[in-house]
């Protein structure tokens, strides 16, 4: 297929590559500004407290300090779902909550000023466990909430949103089952996506109401929308987004960083830069949601899931921005992966006194699945079923449907992913390596090897809306006008590829505008693997529209009645019926340009799919787990960018993916709620020295998307792996492991090599 294309599916160097390898890329913190001030945040030492008094006088007197803002003089800006989170509040709800913000001429003056601010707190009892938080008498985080429970409606999704999965008759389903399994399963180690570049923004507020925001972010239009909601419609917000040093979703939640800078800029009249430190990013930014299900599943001997029931508790920390949406998407994704007719899954979103959870690659579905697959595994074990076969059988097939995030039913019009799964299993050698439940694949001395498999898919590949313009200039060069930030997927380069392909021009002739809301139209931005279908879809449509307009101009020059009679390549247009008859673009575009417009409208009838096989080795003497091999398998419809796709799929390890089952976790002090490992030594991440072997199997079955028949898979690569690791580790040691990550402590405990006695210390 790919062979017919000039650029699609071909390796094309990234247009931003030279800047990246020479240090020329200007990330947020590299941008030059005049009259720049710096901002810093004073953070709470208590997980739950009321500010009794706050004295900023000494700090104000420090030379170089330009503004200090506390809850007493902060603009009345709120956000969240519901919007009950004030930018600065009299009450602090987690260790690290913002108490005051300072603008000064240098960062070091800011830091000095922070030390001079005197705060007196009335410390309140705090709650860190979601179940405790729901109990009567538990400390309450907000007056507006009861039992620390958040409303379940995702208001941003429109009039309706999925708040549960209730369909069919679960009792009948359980009655029909050959095996029923139940229990409590969690994925609650709240790993952190930690994009390498910490969040940050520069904001210039020019009175009365013109605000320019430069931000490390993956979304232009959506960010402008969010800020406009916060500042008020009368404020003219301009958002400029350059290269983003990773996000994995998280930076979509940087409203606070931006608003701190905005408030300080409003107070000083100068641009203010506020970048988080790595410690702040780890302790005060975005964690994965904590998930726990108390669930029950029924299964037949042939692997049919007859019923899924239970409660799903989502821990969101001190507030939610999108947890309701994650819940809604997670529910839909559960239905895509488990074709059960009977469901009764009731979620709850709970606040506790810790840093907030939020948007991370895998968006709700990874969290739910990491808890659901271990539950399903228990049923499979009872029936002695091969998990590969069961997961394959239960993944959505043509003719099925699901409730998606808007609580509407969608009939699935995608492909059967079974061939891709079979191919993955073959490459991995699943049939040989799978020895049955809780049976190691091999044992060599103290090293036990086990295998596991996981799956994920989402129908957000066509989520939300976006638009693009394609302008063909009189010099024959092409400009794509689209609000898109490069955050690692190579998507900006892919827009060049698709435009060059549609218009048949050398890719060097195509460029894309910076993401600047003053210039670029509505575009939701990268999320949920929507880039390939949605973002590129809009560009393709715009390029086609531009071509049509070009042909309309050329048709009379070539004596054609209808633009359809024309074709073009390399800036020459000819009559299909008589290729000798041609004009150049230059001739057509004498002193003019054409502008094509393209729009993408949401389509929830397709889903992507990724299955991951993992092989792990566990040392039964030390409890150490190593991932030896990963095989990811998917069908991308049509590969657009082979190297970019490989990068996305290799990304399965990082950004709180597979390694969230291996060593990644956010560690909370049990009594103070402090995040103890908020640094890159104690927060564990994958190093080059210990890379498992990764193979990516990518099939190319044309999908019903756009003319290139491609579907996105990048976002989901982190999602199938964690539960696969848990399964593999359990098989390796012959004991169930149900907690993430699989630490030496947990393995040794499961093996009975520790007694569990607490003997020392508290004397």
């Amino acid at each position: 297929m790919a062979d017919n294309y000039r650029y699609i599916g071909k390796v094309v160097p990234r247009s931003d590559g030279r800047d990246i390898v020479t240090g020329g890329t200007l990330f947020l913190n590299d941008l030059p500004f005049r009259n720049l001030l710096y901002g810093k945040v004073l953070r709470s030492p208590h997980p739950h407290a009321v500010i009794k008094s706050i004295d900023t006088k000494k700090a104000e007197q420090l030379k170089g300090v330009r503004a200090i803002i506390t809850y007493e003089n902060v603009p009345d800006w709120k956000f969240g779902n519901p919007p009950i989170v004030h930018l600065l509040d009299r009450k602090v709800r987690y260790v690290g909550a913002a108490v005051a913000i300072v603008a000064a001429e240098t960062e070091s003056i800011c830091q000095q000023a922070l030390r001079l601010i005197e705060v007196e707190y009335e410390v309140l009892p705090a709650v860190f466990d979601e179940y405790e938080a729901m109990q009567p008498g538990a400390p309450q985080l907000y007056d507006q909430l009861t039992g620390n429970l958040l409303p379940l409606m995702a208001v941003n999704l429109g009039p309706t949103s999925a708040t549960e999965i209730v369909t069919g008759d679960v009792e009948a389903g359980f009655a029909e089952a050959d095996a029923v399994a139940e229990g409590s399963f969690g994925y609650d180690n709240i790993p952190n996506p930690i994009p390498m570049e910490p969040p940050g923004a520069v904001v210039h507020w020019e009175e009365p109401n013109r605000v320019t925001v430069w931000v490390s972010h993956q979304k232009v239009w959506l960010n402008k929308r969010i800020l406009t909601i916060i500042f008020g419609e009368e404020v003219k917000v301009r958002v400029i987004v350059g290269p983003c040093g990773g996000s994995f979703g998280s930076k979509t939640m940087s409203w606070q960083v931006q608003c701190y800078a905005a408030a300080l800029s409003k107070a000083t009249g100068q641009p203010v830069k506020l970048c988080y430190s790595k410690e702040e990013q780890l302790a005060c930014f975005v964690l994965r949601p904590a998930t726990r299900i108390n669930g029950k599943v029924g299964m037949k001997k042939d692997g049919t899931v007859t019923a899924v029931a239970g409660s799903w508790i989502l821990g969101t920390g001190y507030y939610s921005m999108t947890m309701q949406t994650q819940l809604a998407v997670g529910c839909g994704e559960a239905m895509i992966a488990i074709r059960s007719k009977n469901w009764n899954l009731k979620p709850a979103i709970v606040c506790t006194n810790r840093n907030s959870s939020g948007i991370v690659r895998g968006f709700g579905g990874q969290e739910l699945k990491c808890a659901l697959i271990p539950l399903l595994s228990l049923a499979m074990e009872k029936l002695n079923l091969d998990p590969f076969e069961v997961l394959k059988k239960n993944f959505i097939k043509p003719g099925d449907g699901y409730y998606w995030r808007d609580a509407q039913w969608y009939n699935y019009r995608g492909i059967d992913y079974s061939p891709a799964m079979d191919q993955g299993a073959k490459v991995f050698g699943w049939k040989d390596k799978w020895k049955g439940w809780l049976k190691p694949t091999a044992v060599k001395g103290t090293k036990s090897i086990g295998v596991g498999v996981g799956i994920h898919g989402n129908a957000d590949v066509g989520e939300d809306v976006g638009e693009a313009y394609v302008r063909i200039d009189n010099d024959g060069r092409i400009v794509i006008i689209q609000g898109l930030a490069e955050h690692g997927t190579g998507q900006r380069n892919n827009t060049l590829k698709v435009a060059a392909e549609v218009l048949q021009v050398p890719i060097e002739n195509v460029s894309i505008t910076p993401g600047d809301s003053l210039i670029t139209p509505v575009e939701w931005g990268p999320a949920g693997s929507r880039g390939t279908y949605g973002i590129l879809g809009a560009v393709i449509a715009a390029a086609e529209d531009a071509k049509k307009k070009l042909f309309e101009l050329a048709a009379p020059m070539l004596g054609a009645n209808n633009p359809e009679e024309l074709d073009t390549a390399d800036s020459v247009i000819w009559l299909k019926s008589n290729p000798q008859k041609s004009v150049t673009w230059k001739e057509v575009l004498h002193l003019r340009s054409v502008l094509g417009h393209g729009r993408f409208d949401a389509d929830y009838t397709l889903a992507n799919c990724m299955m991951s096989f993992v092989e792990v080795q566990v040392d039964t003497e030390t409890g150490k787990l190593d991932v030896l091999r990963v095989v990811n398998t998917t069908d991308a419809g049509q590969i657009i960018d082979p190297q970019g796709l490989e990068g996305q799929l290799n990304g399965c390890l990082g950004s709180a993916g597979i390694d969230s089952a291996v060593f990644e976790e956010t560690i909370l002090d049990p009594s103070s709620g402090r995040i103890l490992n908020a640094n890159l030594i104690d927060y564990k991440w994958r190093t080059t020295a210990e890379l498992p072997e990764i193979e990516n199997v990518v099939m190319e079955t044309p999908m019903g998307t756009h003319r290139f028949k491609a579907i996105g898979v990048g976002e989901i690569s982190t999602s199938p792996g964690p539960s696969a690791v848990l399964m593999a580790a359990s098989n390796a040691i012959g004991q169930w492991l149900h907690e993430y990550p699989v630490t030496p402590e947990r393995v040794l405990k499961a093996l009975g090599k520790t007694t569990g006695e607490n003997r020392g210390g508290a004397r």
Partner: protein
Amino acid sequence: MRKHQINLTVNSQVYQLEVGTGQGRVNPSDTLSFTLRETLGLTGTKLSCDGGACGGCTVLMDGEAVLSCMLLTIECDGKIITTIEGLKDAKTGELDPLQQSFIDHTAFQCGYCTPGMIMSAKALLNENPAPTEAEVKKALSGNFCRCISHYQVVRAVMDATGKGR
């Protein structure tokens, strides 16, 4: 003894910097990464953890890979520093083979870790022009990459071996 002035050679250019506070000077607590980025305007060197744990700020000091966030500039007097900006040929603009190889392999996603990765790899190739894959992996083991560009990075470095200048 207190220093009043330091000499730094960065990418073949010699800088004489006064010790003190204020624009263009070196405060005793300034790290090398701060001086490079804020005082000399060389923002190619990236900061991520500012604590020695991510390798994003790796530069060459007298040919060896070091972390610029963990060095006091005032203690780098007389040192020869190479940053990512110093790898390409200053006259022709031609890229170092390592840089070209990173482009050829798309050995980056967001690209934030890339300058540090390249500098660590450069230090390795300076010392060992024909490393094994295992040696490359070890040499890069102090460089964080959250996007997981590692596989493509290792390939890019292996491909550039022997071609280093």
